[in-house]
């Protein structure tokens, strides 16, 4: 069901007394895809964090309405726990869904991670960590998926898998939000939030 899950006409956020995003007009629907573009320091990561409840800064005078949806974020900093194996990470991060082993196997296979299931994350490369996080998000299938700098660390094969994931989500009418310095043209039907114009 189409729904505006985040709406604000004057979103102003920052850290301490410093305002990073000022008076941004934002209306996000859970059935559309968005790309957040902007130069360095324009607030892409801040906005992505804010959308996905990971924002730890200050909210200034802003009127915001938002629905509590299942939102997952993949950021350049790894969220996976480095002392656990991939299998343990998958179990921990998807435990609330009760997903069967067969689905997990097929998703990990899709992301070419089957051989690394019992390896500790601390031995993974940045690309492998990103791929693992994408696999976990594919297993979770959240209402909204935010990816900050989606192409970072991914090789050609990884980018193809990412495109495939985003296309499937789009055809399922699930929202994906990508933030990067310029338009990536991964999906055709994306709305743009341009932070250079704020």
């Amino acid at each position, binding site marked *: 069901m189409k729904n505006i899950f985040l709406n604000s006409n004057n979103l102003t956020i920052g850290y301490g007394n410093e305002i990073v995003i000022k008076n941004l007009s934002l209306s996000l629907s859970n059935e559309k895809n968005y790309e957040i573009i902007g130069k360095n320091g324009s607030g892409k990561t801040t906005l992505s964090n804010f959308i996905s409840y990971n924002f730890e800064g200050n909210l200034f005078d802003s009127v915001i309405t938002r629905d509590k949806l299942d939102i997952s*974020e993949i950021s350049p*900093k790894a969220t996976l*726990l480095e*002392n*656990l194996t991939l299998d343990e990470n998958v179990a921990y991060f998807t435990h609330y869904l009760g997903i069967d082993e067969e689905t997990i196997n097929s998703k990990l296979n899709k992301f070419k991670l089957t051989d690394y299931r019992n390896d500790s994350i601390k031995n993974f490369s940045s690309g492998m960590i990103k791929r693992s996080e994408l696999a976990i998000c594919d297993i979770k299938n959240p209402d909204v998926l935010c990816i900050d700098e989606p192409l970072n660390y991914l090789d050609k094969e990884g980018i193809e898998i990412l495109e495939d994931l985003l296309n499937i989500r789009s055809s399922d009418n699930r929202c994906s939000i990508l933030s990067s310095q310029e338009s990536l043209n991964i999906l055709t039907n994306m709305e743009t939030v341009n932070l250079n114009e704020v």
Partner: protein
Amino acid sequence: MKFNKYLIKKELFTEFRNNSSLYLITPTMTVLIIVFPILAENRFAIDEDLFIIIQILFLILFSTLFSIRNPIDNQKLSRELNFARITRSEYFINKITSEFLIYFPQILLFSVLYSAFTNTSVKTSVLYFIFTIIFFSVNTVMVNIIFQMFTSFNNKFVQFILIVPIYMAFSFFIAPIWLGINQELINIYLMLYLGITILIFSFTNIYLERNEK
């Protein structure tokens, strides 16, 4: 109040693989308590007057080292909890449980070793001794987690300075019991300790749950 076996398992695995407490703090403290009686009195026995105060001192030192071993990075924690869809109140109770499971056997073993190496013992029954250790462990673990969840110490020294007086306060409740006060007073002290534990836990839990709504 919801126990999450995945969260407890994750904390235990992280501890066993990170091993800063199991392989560093406990052996160091054990060596200290072996060496202490020889240094203090040149024999493997110490005066009863000295025994309890030194044991409490070791207990506070041990708890403080345990507390600052693995600081919580709040931003990383917040991201992790959101990704795993775990609320902060759920994290709080499960983190207390896992920290207690790691800490309690160590502190119990440590106290027993201390008694063994100094050929001296507390003047209370084993049952009350274990009860006091349980209360002390739960409270120190809880206060440490509260400190780390609601403040952002980048400096372990500041954390050390602030947390030691609180641990000292907790140890004041167990000192009289170990000194051998009578049964009625032991019950009063233990009830007081239980009350404090419930108060700290419930206020924190209410605060966390209110913020989640």
